[in-house]
């Protein structure tokens, strides 16, 4: 793949974008386009595959190849695209309902197979397109039209699910932070293997401000922590807070007389146990929402191994000869 020089505009399709005014999806679309500009992949080699839901309209707005598929199945269709032609750059566009509920099975198996594609999950903690029912990421007790007395379902934590399924790249981002989101999308696109990006996205109509307690621009510096590999975990408007390991627990500490930078944890994106702890601990206001690239692991991709198997067998057996196949095993002549 040689590099292409695009502006973000080159990646906008001729279709009018039809999300609700103020929807977080607009920022995600723009960030994705910017990330693709950054990685320089050619648009004919890019395929966006989505399921069903508000998020899944995204492919229509990208001037790349795009397939809007059926509910929950985008990872499977994307897998077929990528395995059929490994040169393509494949993005799966999904939401918390599409990816974790109806498509939960495909999600976990995509994570474990490690096909080189990017799974972008718009988490708005609600079903938007069907007009407001609780989703797998909604908080327990949530009152919606389908749960007038509060939902009984416990909450899925997508990051833990992805790690538990064996994902090789985990990142989290906020729709209120396009810069941070573009950075993790760029990193995800460059990762060889399945990249999972969870974006906290605001649904202005059915779940407005669901992420506000950490995503709000005014307070975000104190409620989120953007991790960077090799750097100490510092956050806060005044850069005066940090994370330290206390026994087997992560702990927020104030920098000053008692704790210095050297007491803080240094982010290691290759440390799987740390990634689990960071996702698990992310509970504002007690602990900042951890964003950025939480985990990354180098592992051979599925499609590479599939191509290698074909090469190995061909090297051993030679290219397939159909006549030989027909005459393989026992044959006889009738005269």
């Amino acid at each position, binding site marked *: 793949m040689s590099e292409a020089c695009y502006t973000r505009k080159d990646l906008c399709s001729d279709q009018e974008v039809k999300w609700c005014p103020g929807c977080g999806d607009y920022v995600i679309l723009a960030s994705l386009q910017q990330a693709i500009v950054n990685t320089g992949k050619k648009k004919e080699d*890019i395929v966006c595959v989505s399921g069903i839901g508000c998020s899944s309209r995204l492919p229509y707005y990208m001037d790349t190849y795009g397939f809007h598929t059926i509910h929950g199945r985008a990872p499977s269709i994307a897998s077929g695209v990528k395995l059929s032609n490994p040169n393509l750059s494949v993005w799966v566009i999904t939401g918390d309902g599409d990816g974790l509920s109806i498509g939960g099975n495909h999600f976990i198996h995509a994570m474990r197979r490690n096909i080189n594609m990017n799974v972008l999950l718009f988490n708005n903690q609600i079903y938007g397109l069907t007009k407001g029912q609780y989703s797998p990421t909604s908080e327990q007790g949530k009152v919606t039209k389908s749960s007038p007395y509060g939902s009984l379902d416990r909450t899925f934590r997508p990051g833990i699910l992805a790690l538990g399924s064996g994902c090789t790249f985990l990142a989290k981002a906020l729709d209120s932070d396009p810069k941070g989101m573009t950075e993790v999308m760029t990193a995800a696109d460059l990762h060889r293997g399945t990249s999972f990006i969870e974006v906290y996205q605001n649904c202005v109509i059915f779940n407005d401000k669901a992420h506000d307690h950490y995503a709000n621009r005014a307070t975000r510096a104190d409620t989120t922590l953007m991790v960077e590999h090799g750097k100490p975990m510092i956050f806060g408007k005044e850069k005066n807070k940090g994370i330290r390991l206390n026994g087997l627990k992560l702990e927020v500490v104030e920098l000053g007389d008692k704790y210095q930078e050297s007491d803080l944890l240094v982010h290691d994106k290759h440390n799987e146990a740390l990634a689990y702890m960071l996702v698990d601990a992310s509970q504002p206001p007690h602990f900042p929402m951890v964003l950025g690239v939480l985990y990354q692991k180098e592992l051979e991709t599925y499609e590479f191994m599939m191509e290698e198997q074909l090469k190995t067998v061909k090297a051993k057996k030679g290219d397939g000869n159909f006549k030989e196949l027909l005459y393989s095993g026992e044959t006889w002549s009738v005269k």
Partner: protein
Amino acid sequence: MTSSNSIDSVVIRFAGDSGDGMQLTGTQFSNTSAVMGNDIATFPDYPSEIRAPSGTIAGVSGFQVHIGATEIFTPGDEVDMLVAMNPAALKANLHAVKPSGYIVVNIDAFTEKNLEKAKYAVSPLEDGSLQNYRVIQAPITSQTIEALKEVAVDSKTKDRCKNFYALGMTYYFYSRSNDTTIKWIEQKFKNKPDIIKANIAALKAGECFAENTETVISTYTVPVAKIPTGDYRQIDGNTATAWGLIRAAEMAKLPLFLGSYPITPATDILHELAKHKEFGVKTFQAEDEIAGICSAIGAACAGSLAVTTSSGPGMALKTEAIGLAISYELPLVIVNVQRGGPSTGLPTKTEQSDLFQAIWGRNGEAPLVVIAASRPNDCFASAYEAARIALQHMIPVILLTDGYIANGAEPWKIPDVSTQFGPIQHRMIDLEKIDKATFHYMNRDEKTLARPWVVPGMPGLEFRMGGLEKDIKTGCVSTDPRNHELMCHLRQKKVDLVAENIPLQTLEGADSGDLLVVSWGGTYGSCYMAVKKLQAEGKKISHMHLKYLNPMPKNVETILKNFNKIIIPELNLGQLKTVINAKFGVKAKGYNKVQGLPFKISELVEVFNQELIKE
């Protein structure tokens, strides 16, 4: 006292415990007979439990072989000789043996414990219940061990050789040469000389026992069948399906991609395709049936000849995705190896009850092409044909086979691939040959109405597509009421136009008469044989076997209307009958059976005869 008689055909069933090697024994008998010039048809009958408790009826595994001096179309109605390795095998299969047929029993296995497991209060060998059969009691286990006493293998291995002993007996009864089997044993166990020795010794000991036993009255010879000259091999339906797909991909110059999930009785297609990476075949064992077809749809989006394989319950799960493939107008081959339903139904038994599901079983107006294979070796041509239609018309095609033909095996005249099953033109565009300024992915071929196949990677042609209704010209999402109606008609018209690209329907027999037998799928052999028998008696009966079920060939209506009566035998409650009566306004009768078993030729002869006699 022995004498040798010549007979036209014989049906032998080998039955024993799942672990007794009956499938292997039956396969050896049929291979030997094929090599000796007989026509053959076989059918394995195994339990759905992998290893049900040994000695029980649930654990009985059988393999039926039909060999003949004339062309053989079915594995046979009634059994001439049953080889029963234990009491359960006898109990489970006795009903299939014809009166005065032979039953070979392994008396060593008729112990009190085994009789109890088979739920016999008294041994059937002692209570006179077998007096209408000719029973040959052979101490198969003990004789095998005795014959192998000099061979350096453990006693468990010796016991395992008893199937070759039984095979040897049948070889003697039916004058089979043991060459093919000995060659096979030597090849199979080439690094295990003791195993070779043991198996061959058991085989020969069985032949000796049969020759010396006083109970055998006659041995039989089945003369060479008069079959067309050429090179032959044995093939089962699932392997033939897999090979047909490989051939189609090769001839379309496209990579073959299979997305599938294991399900009885279709899994062997996945197994076979997974073997042939030298042809560049990519097989993807998905996490479920839905992912199986969805990965195939993705592969079709990206330019592969894409296939998914399944059986009834899996087809049900794939339904929504099939609708997507119809909406996308993608080439996709969907193979349904039918089994007894509904729900989990009868996984290892055959039925042809998914025709309605194939033609209509989707939400919305969602037409596609349906074709069906008629016999094991026809699966090759049918799979190739399904792929050809899919690729030329940009449409999903369902290929229906069934458990009976998928697992059944028969000789196959190896096609001459220098003249047959040649190149397949498809709709993938050649970037050199299009004018990008005027090109559009919704611009259709005038004859077929198929859209061009544009795949990611082609610069300047990027497009978006979804399961949402598309504008007929631009392909963009459209909720316009008229446009939707146009698109529904267009998708139907695309299917109808396939009729211009398939052969006209042929008939066995005169093109008019008293009775027309209409069949489809795996019942071909029994219907054909029954009709032939009645034709030989001078009856005005003809046979129309449909390969193309949706759309049907253009001349089907004319054929139907030239007969006084129409009968449609099916292994369902009358699905094709309903389709034909609705479509053509005729009053075809059904003859239906849903026992998980194929039709017997004799039962069809009787049914057709009754129909001919009736006013």
